[in-house]
């Protein structure tokens, strides 16, 4: 089975009936600006897709600074979903992304199911949007969706409300800050989410011994980066077992090897967040790294690799 060669590897992945990506590498919401910020470093069209900063009906100011702090192998952020609002996004940002040939996934959030539904209805009318990512998992603002993301019933109702407004492919983004992430996963898949993405950040805190104050003005923030990779990999593995819709793996990906680990446990695609800050060209490097690895493994298509984890005792090792 392992043959080497220069043959082209098919990296296409399907995440929903109408959503086929040229490769499984996606930039994560809130870490890739509106895409434009990264144009000097890479060709946006080379990404499987990019996910915008979370967009709300009206512009949001976000939290006061201090908003970020580094932690061991990670960082806490409490940006607070600052964004320019859906109108400005459509007028000022989307046209450029379309022109750049980017596959655009818009991350949306609101304070009520009606907000989410209204956003979906607005975005439904636009061209150049490949899918919506419903954020029910931001820990940094009271109305950041987390109240929906921790309750299977509320999460399902919210997804159903969005589903009614749009035929766009829907991705629901889940929080790891729950007792059983598969409960939420099953509920939102049943409610019509075509795909799930996980994980959002873990709630954390940092204090400054010198000043005896919390570092973040918001007190707590979301933990991201390599530190959380083991938690993310576990959550993705569990959810892949629990649902029949594709899963996008997110959390601490810093290399093609990390990305391949998520694909191995069954993620159909991956998102890279924090590490974009460290290396703005990382997404494209990971695309290349995945292709190289699969070619060396003799795979002709990425489908052969996804979910190929061998379980002990399953008679396959």
């Amino acid at each position, binding site marked *: 089975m392992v043959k080497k060669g220069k043959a082209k590897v098919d990296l296409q992945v399907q995440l929903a009936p109408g959503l086929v990506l040229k490769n499984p590498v996606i930039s994560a919401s809130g870490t890739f600006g509106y895409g434009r910020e990264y144009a000097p470093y890479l060709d946006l069209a080379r990404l499987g897709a990019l996910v915008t900063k979370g967009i709300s009906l009206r512009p949001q*100011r976000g939290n006061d*600074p*201090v*908003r970020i702090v*580094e932690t061991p*192998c990670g960082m806490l952020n409490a940006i607070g979903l600052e964004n320019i609002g859906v109108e400005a996004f459509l007028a000022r940002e989307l046209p450029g992304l379309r022109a750049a040939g980017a596959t655009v996934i818009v991350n949306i959030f609101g304070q009520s199911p009606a907000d989410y539904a209204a956003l979906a209805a607005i975005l439904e009318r636009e061209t150049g949007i490949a899918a919506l990512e419903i954020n029910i998992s931001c820990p940094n603002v009271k109305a950041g969706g987390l109240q929906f993301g921790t309750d299977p019933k509320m999460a399902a109702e919210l997804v159903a409300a969005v589903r009614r407004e749009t035929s766009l492919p829907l991705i629901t983004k889940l929080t790891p800050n729950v007792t059983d992430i598969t409960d939420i996963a099953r509920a939102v898949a049943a409610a019509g989410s075509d795909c799930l993405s996980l994980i959002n950040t873990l709630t954390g805190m940092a204090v400054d011994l010198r000043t005896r104050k919390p570092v973040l003005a918001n007190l707590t923030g979301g933990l991201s980066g390599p530190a959380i990779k083991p938690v993310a990999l576990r959550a993705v593995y569990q959810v892949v077992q629990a649902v029949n819709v594709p899963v996008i793996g997110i959390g601490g990906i810093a290399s093609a090897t990390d990305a391949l680990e998520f694909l191995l446990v069954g993620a159909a695609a991956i998102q890279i967040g924090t590490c974009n*800050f460290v*290396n703005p060209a990382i997404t494209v490097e990971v695309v290349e790294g995945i292709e190289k690895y699969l070619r060396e493994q003799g795979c002709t298509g990425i489908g052969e690799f996804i979910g190929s984890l061998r379980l002990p005792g399953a008679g396959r090792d």
Partner: protein
Amino acid sequence: MRLFYAEVKSRQEINAGIFTVRLAGDGRFGDQFIPGQFVMVGIPEAVSHDPLLRRPFSVARVFASEDEFELAIKVVGRGTTILQHLRPGELVPIHGPLGNGYPLDLLEPPGKVIMVAGGLGIASLLSLLDHCRQRGWPLEDLALVLGARSAAELVYVELLEDLARQGLRFLLATEDGSRGQQGLVTAPLTGLLAAWEAAEPLVFSCGPLPMLRAVCRLTAGRHCRTYLSLESRMACGFGACLGCVTRKKEDDGSGSWLKVCLDGPVFPAAMLPW
């Protein structure tokens, strides 16, 4: 803005915990550089994710002919401790130059320029001083006020004293009086502002927040235009994370923020709330 690995050409210990490091450009770094810009420096050890984020440092000097540039760094934490051990020949991940830099359109002689540096803030202003000299500004019309807690926190003093002998108005103050006059920069600055006000000087300042605020207070209402270079915690350095924001003047709590990395680090004092 460039993304490359820079070879360490040399490193020089200045004082306990302060050093300069000279790095190779990538052939185009110097062309793109505007004084006041900074670079995000990655941790060389690629196998470790701790520390994770790059660190911002002002570019103190560009040596165009050799395609090299220099940073001046004070050791304050984990990242700077690692950078302190850089050796010639090592490769350091560099991202930059980043930020807006000082307002070059205003920076044409004639006129008078006052630069106020606190501690390592001198790094940013040294690049401005170099620029002014290259634009043919007479040293006599340039003033540099440098303050620090003590002599041990000073860098580039010899270089500045040399320029002082050639005409630069160089005023030095340390809080403990271990070098220059004793006290804060505010004392010499007050005198200088009074003396030069008629010339409607440009004032540029970079240093700790309390000093910047003091500079604002001293220049407010005077005939001078004041620009401040700010610091902030940064994750990305290029406008992607929204981590580095600071408050605008007349912010009623509903408006947007200033991104220190992209809208700054240099701001007209009039834009800031102090």
